Structures are given as structure tokens and as C-alpha cells.
């Protein structure tokens, strides 16, 4: 009984969460709810197709077409029958509608009119669209053009530097209005993320949990346990999606603050240290007893689920760059249902390899022994590396270099410990490679750390090549040259000044909490070639750190979602749209955009 009441409350709560963003924005315009697209069919007939939002419907008999003032014969499909007390049964379309017009001329302006309502909520006046028969472009009857496939929440893709899964960043641009397509994209996204070092730590956690129920672990049981782990993890992401849609753009901002990044890195270090065996991460005794009532079985479904949920929260932030892109997209569309289910799909994708491991690996996993301890130690090392990598976005260069130095030296020492743990100083041939590696790491680490002390950063080259640290161009302190503004009046004045001098203008939307901006400033904007090309331009930095009304007004002026965004204005002060840069990008790409700005 109590369970039923709790269930009801949770359902209400979740439903209320979903209603909030939808309601707060007011009703959707008819254009958004009924989306018309036009194609030419096989027999040269004009095919009209409407995508209709759930909860809305179109009237069959209200769909009409005309050309040059004369009505055209339009064939429509059968619709769902709705009982209108006046007319009797009326046909309406839900989800989608289609119609065709035969024998259309090759040129001309065809007008299509349609009308619909939202169930029990609102009825729209008739909508008329004009179709250019030559190009099949659909526009308002007043002449406003909308491009096919323009979805309101599409976020421009940004190729990111330094992440281990660059393909994931590009995927963000492929998210369009089709729901299923979005889900599949996020699923693939998650699958790609599963192969980043960030999700590596989940392997020993999962296998540790599985092997604790050693002896009774059949593939079926392994599947069930890992399934509950993966589902709980995906659920955690789903909740994150709800919050993303709810809080909107502020989420990206808060994820990038130095405080958030530091906290996440700290969590990774804590997890890493547990891998090394300094302590065991366990649930408190009370919870332990409640979840594992059967004292004999140490692997319960609820325990697995809890572990999955926790790992999502710990590991999730590591994949911040691509995840933030996804979250921003969701925040923009504001659609909570889509947002949470898309992120749920992401979590599922991330967990699929784990599921396979849990099911099939279960039979192959030996009991807890040296193998598992080794895996845990390796993942501990990787975790610390990931923590350093995350911190490198906000730390100064000397600290980064010395951290990597210590890390390398530490790894070398650890390797030495493994190789020579036998007290007998007997040298086997097979110990040679590990000994060599150990020495190599230690020497490299010393070079890095020592170099950092002396301001010599060349040892960072291999790391820069692997895109783990920023490239060489940024290892020197440089003059920035950007004029900083925080409100609209100053921004206008600065732009006007640039125009008066006949210069092009670059406006850099940036914030102190935006780690991506820092990255851009240190890598792309500090590059010698880029500086050369920017020399002739008026450089303005719009600082939106405070995120108050003034910041929002300057962002709205240029339709900027959030930093980092770089906008180029031509000599007349108009934006060169091709050159706009959202998110981080590489030097080559940015140089191409400067070229585009110089053309525009």
C-alpha cells in the first residue's frame, strides 16, 4: 500500500517536472506543431507531408490548395474519425498527414492551407503556406522562407581538440527533429564513449561486483546483474537530462566552472586511490544489510543498480565535452521527455560493452585474485591520468607539466614495484621489458617535472602530439590584445569604433567559468598564424561571466547560446555568418573561418 502511494507520488513528481518547461513557454505556434514538407513524387505529382506533434491534429477537410487564385484538386488519405456533434464523424490526422496533387506545372506559386487544433487545449486559425514549384521551397504566404529540416534546437557542431573521441563531437550536429533518429544517435554516441578511458574504471567495479558472487555466477545471473547496473546508470543520465532541459543554458555554465572541474577530478582521485587498495569503497553497513538480506549472496540486483547509479554520477562528468554539447542541445530544445530519454539512450550505449562483459565474461572471469588486483591498479593509474587531464583545462602550464611529470615518475615506480617484488634479486629475461618501461617512465617524469621548474616545456611534445595538453604555440606568455566589454552599450561603442576605422571585428564571447574558452584562448587565439591574421581586426571580448541581464542582452543580440562563441563582423558591422565559431575548434579550422570572414 505504501509502495503504491510512493509510486503515485513519484509519477506525479516526474510528470510535473515534464510539464514545467512546456508550460512556462506558452502554447506552441501552429508552425511548430504542424510541419509541412514537399517532395516531387515518381509520377511527377506533388507530395505534401505534415509532421504533427503528439496531442495535436489536423482536419482532413480543411486541407486545400490553389494556384493563381484557382482551387486545385488535392487527394488526401483517410484519417482517424472524430465525432463532431455538428457534422457527425469528422476525419482528422494524428502524428502525420499526407496528400498529393497531380499534374502540377513546373513553375508557379502554389498555396496550401490547413488547419488544426491541440486536443482539449487550443484551436489554431488556418495556416497558409506558399510552395515555389521550381525549388519546392515552403514559405509563409507572406514570403518568409524556412529551410527544410530547420529544427529549432539544432546546435552547431564543434570539432573539439583533446578529447579521446573526436567523432562524438561531430555527432552533435546530426541531431534533428526525428525522435527515433535522435535516440539512435545518442545510443551510438554512448557506445563510442564506452571506449574512452573515462568509462574504463567501470570495468573493475563491475567485475569486482560480479566475482564477489563467485561460484554462483551463471551467464544468466551475470546478465541480470550487469543489466541492472547498466539500466541504473542509464537512469542516472536520464535524470541528468531532465535537469538539463529544466535549467537550460545555465547547466553548461556550471559544469565548466573551475570548482565543478576540481570536484570531479577529486572524485576520480578518490576512486583511483580505492583501486590501489588504500581503502575499500563500500556502502554503509545499514544500507548493505537492507540490500543484501540474504547474507550468503553478495551480488544482489539492488546492489548492482545502486552501484550503476553511483558510477554514472562519478564517471559521467569525465566525458564532459561531448556530454555538455548534448546537454546544451537538450537545454535549447527544452523538451524534457526527449532530453531525458536521449540521455538514457546515451547511458545504455555506454553500458552495452559492460553488459556483454557481464554476461559472457562471467564464465571467463576467474575468482578474485592477482588478475583482478592488477586490473584495478591499472584502472587506478588511468583514473589519475584522467583527473590530471581534466584539471589541465584550468591549471597553469607549470603545474600541468609537473603533474604529468609526477604521474609519469609514479607510474615508473609502480612498474618497478611489480617487476621486482620478489625479494630475491634474481634477474629473469622476461622482467626486462617491464624494467625498461619503468626506467623510461621515471626518466620522462623527471624531465617533465624538472623542465617545468625551469620553464622548459619541450618534454610536453609527445603529450601535445597525443592532444592531451595544449600545443607548443601556447607555452609562452603572450599579449592578449582584446578589448573587454560587459554590457550592450560598451559593446556597441567598441563595434562602432572598429567600423569608424574601417576594420573588421572579432567578438569573442567568453566567461571566466568557461574552461573551453580558456582552452581556445591558450591554443587557437594564441597561435602565431592566427595572431598574424587577426592583427588587422578590432578584437572585442564580450565577458558574460556574471550571466546577468546585461550578459543575456548581449548574447541575445547576436543569438549566442553560450560561450565560447566567436563572431566576425565585416567592415560595415554586419555578421559574416559562415565564419561564426561555436565551441572549441582547431587552429586550421579557425584560420579557414578567418578567411571566410575576410571574404564576407
Amino acid at each position, binding site marked *: 500500500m505504501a509502495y503504491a502511494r510512493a509510486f503515485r507520488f513519484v509519477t506525479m513528481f516526474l510528470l510535473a517536472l515534464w510539464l514545467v518547461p512546456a508550460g512556462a513557454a506558452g502554447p506552441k505556434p501552429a508552425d511548430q506543431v504542424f510541419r509541412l514538407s514537399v517532395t516531387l513524387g515518381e509520377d511527377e505529382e506533388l507530395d505534401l507531408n505534415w509532421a504533427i506533434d503528439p496531442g495535436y491534429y489536423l482536419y482532413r477537410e480543411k486541407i486545400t490548395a490553389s494556384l493563381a487564385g484557382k482551387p486545385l484538386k488535392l487527394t488526401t488519405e483517410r484519417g482517424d474519425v472524430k465525432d463532431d456533434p455538428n457534422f457527425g464523424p469528422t476525419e482528422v490526422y494524428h502524428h502525420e498527414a499526407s496528400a498529393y496533387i497531380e499534374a502540377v506545372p513546373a513553375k508557379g506559386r502554389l498555396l496550401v492551407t490547413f488547419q488544426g487544433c491541440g486536443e482539449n*487545449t487550443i484551436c489554431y486559425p488556418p495556416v497558409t503556406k506558399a510552395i515555389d514549384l521550381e525549388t519546392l521551397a515552403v514559405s509563409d504566404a507572406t514570403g518568409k522562407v524556412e529551410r527544410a529540416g530547420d529544427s529549432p534546437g539544432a546546435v552547431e557542431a564543434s570539432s573539439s581538440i583533446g578529447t579521446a573521441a573526436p567523432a562524438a563531437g561531430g555527432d552533435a550536429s546530426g541531431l534533428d527533429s526525428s525522435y527515433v533518429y535522435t535516440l539512435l544517435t545518442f545510443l551510438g554516441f554512448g557506445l563510442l564513449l564506452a571506449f574512452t578511458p573515462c568509462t574504463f574504471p567501470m570495468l573493475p567495479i563491475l567485475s569486482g561486483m560480479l566475482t564477489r558472487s563467485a561460484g554462483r555466477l551463471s551467464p544468466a545471473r551475470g546478465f541480470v546483474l550487469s543489466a541492472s547496473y547498466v539500466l541504473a546508470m542509464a537512469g542516472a543520465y536520464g535524470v541528468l537530462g531532465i535537469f538539463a532541459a529544466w535549467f537550460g543554458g545555465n547547466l553548461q555554465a556550471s559544469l565548466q566552472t573551475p570548482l565543478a572541474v576540481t570536484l570531479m577530478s577529486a572524485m576520480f582521485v578518490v576512486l583511483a586511490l580505492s583501486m590501489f587498495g588504500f581503502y575499500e569503497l563500500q556502502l554503509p553497513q545499514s544500507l548493505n544489510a537492507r540490500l543484501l538480506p540474504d547474507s550468503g549472496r553478495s551480488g544482489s540486483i539492488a546492489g548492482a543498480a545502486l552501484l550503476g547509479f553511483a558510477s554514472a554520477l562519478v564517471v559521467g562528468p569525465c566525458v564532459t565535452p561531448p556530454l555538455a554539447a548534448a546537454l546544451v542541445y537538450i537545454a535549447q530544445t527544452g523538451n524534457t521527455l526527449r532530453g531525458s530519454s536521449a540521455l538514457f539512450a546515451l547511458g545504455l550505449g555506454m553500458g552495452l560493452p559492460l553488459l556483454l562483459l557481464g554476461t559472457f565474461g562471467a564464465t571467463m572471469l576467474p575468482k578474485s585474485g592477482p588478475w583482478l588486483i592488477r586490473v584495478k591498479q591499472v584502472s587506478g593509474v588511468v583514473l589519475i591520468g584522467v583527473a590530471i587531464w581534466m584539471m589541465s583545462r584550468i591549471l597553469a602550464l607549470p603545474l600541468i607539466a609537473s603533474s604529468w611529470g609526477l604521474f609519469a615518475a609514479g607510474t615508473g615506480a609502480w612498474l618497478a614495484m611489480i617487476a621486482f617484488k620478489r625479494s630475491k634479486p634474481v634477474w629473469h629475461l622476461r622482467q626486462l621489458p617491464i624494467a625498461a618501461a619503468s626506467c623510461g617512465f621515471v626518466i620522462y617524469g623527471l624531465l617533465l617535472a624538472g623542465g617545468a621548474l625551469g620553464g622548459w616545456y619541450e618534454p610536453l611534445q609527445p603529450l601535445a602530439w597525443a592532444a592531451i595538453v595544449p600545443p607548443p604555440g601556447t607555452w609562452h606568455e603572450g599579449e592578449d590584445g582584446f578589448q573587454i566589454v560587459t554590457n550592450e552599450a560598451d559593446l556597441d561603442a567598441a563595434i562602432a569604433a572598429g567600423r569608424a576605422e574601417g576594420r573588421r571585428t572579432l567578438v569573442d564571447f567568453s566567461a571566466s567559468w568557461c574552461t573551453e574558452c580558456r582552452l581556445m584562448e591558450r591554443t587557437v587565439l594564441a597561435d602565431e598564424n592566427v595572431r598574424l591574421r587577426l592583427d588587422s581586426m578590432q578584437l572585442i571580448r564580450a565577458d558574460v561571466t556574471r550571466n546577468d541581464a546585461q550578459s543575456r542582452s548581449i548574447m541575445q543580440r547576436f543569438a549566442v547560446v553560450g560561450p565560447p562563441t566567436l563572431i566576425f563582423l565585416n567592415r560595415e558591422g554586419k555578421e559574416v555568418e559562415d565564419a561564426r565559431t561555436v565551441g572549441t575548434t582547431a587552429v586550421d579550422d579557425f584560420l579557414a573561418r578567418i578567411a571566410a570572414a575576410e571574404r564576407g
Partner: protein
Amino acid sequence: MSDSLSRNTFLRLAGGAAMLLLTKTFARSAENEVTSEMILADPETPIGGNPNGDLTIVDFFDYNCPFCKKSAVHLERLVKTDGKIKLIYRDWPILTETSIVGAQLALAARYQGKYLDVHHALMGIPGYGISREQMIDAVRKSNIDLPRLDADLQGNADAIRGLIKRNLTIAEAIGLQGTPGFLVGPYKVNEALTYEGFQHVVADARTRQRK
């Protein structure tokens, strides 16, 4: 158990949804020449409820809008129960041609003091595709002087047309997407509400006004 669950849930959801759908309205007077005086103090709009009420509701509706008719029942009941709401009727014929016919009939009846009779008669025809004949038939059945109605229709055609045009302009200026639309005090609600929904909006509007 499941029946009561669904009814309670529905009511709570409806009330919740109504609350969540409040948007503050700013009549952009400078740009659209629409002022709040125009909206609230137009001498030719029909008034219902309590003309000296402390809260004003402006109702934008169409005689071919099925959801307007459903929510009108709830709105009228609330206005009657509450007793302190001033209700301004703004005929907003946007859905189809016969909508304009209905609006003209109702507004013409105002000249003989019978607007509400015709209004309720027309709103009483359920559904959406009302024909001109059905509307006239409904008007005939209400307690009205038909020859006088005809005369008023012809004689005041300009004034009626002017008012309808004003209603269209105002609705567009405040950004209504479709029917029904309500201005409850400072709040704009652009969808059909249940009785509880209206209650919540009215309560919120009054709280807002007290501040």
C-alpha cells in the same frame, strides 16, 4: 482504487497544468498602438459578471471552437460563484467564415441588450463546423427580437466591424496563437482550462494584484 487514482491524478494534473501555463502579458503599447486601456476599457465590448469586480478577465473566443465552448461552461460557473469577477467578451472570429457571422449576430444583439442571450445560444452549439443556418436557428430559438436584430446589423455594421477588427489586433498584439485565449488580471492563458484551472489562475492573479 484505480478509478479514484485516475480522477485525482487528472484533477491535480489539470490544476497543475493550469498553474504552469501562466505567462505574464506585456501589452507592447508603443509598437502596436494597443494599450491596456484599449483592452480593458473599450466602451463597446460586452461585459458580464460583476462590472465592479476587483479582477478582470478578458475572454477571446470563436463560435467554431469546440474547446472554447467547453471551457466557457467552467468560466461562467466560476464568474457566477466568485461574484467579484468582471468578464469582458472579445469576439475573436479567426477559425472559419461562419465564425464572423456568429460574431456579427452576437454583437448586433448587444444593441437590444441581448448580447449574452445570443452568446450563450451560439456557445451552446457544440463542435466546430457550425453552418450559418445553424447559427441563425440557434439565435431564433433564443429570446430575441429578430427584425430589430436585422435592423441593428445593418445600421451598426461599421461599429461592429470596427470592434471585431480591434479584437483581432489586440489578440495578435498580445501574442495569442489560437482560441481560446484569456487575460486573467496580468496573466495570459492561451488554452482551454477546467474549473479548477480557472480557480487557480484567478487565485494567482489576485495574489499578484495585491502585491
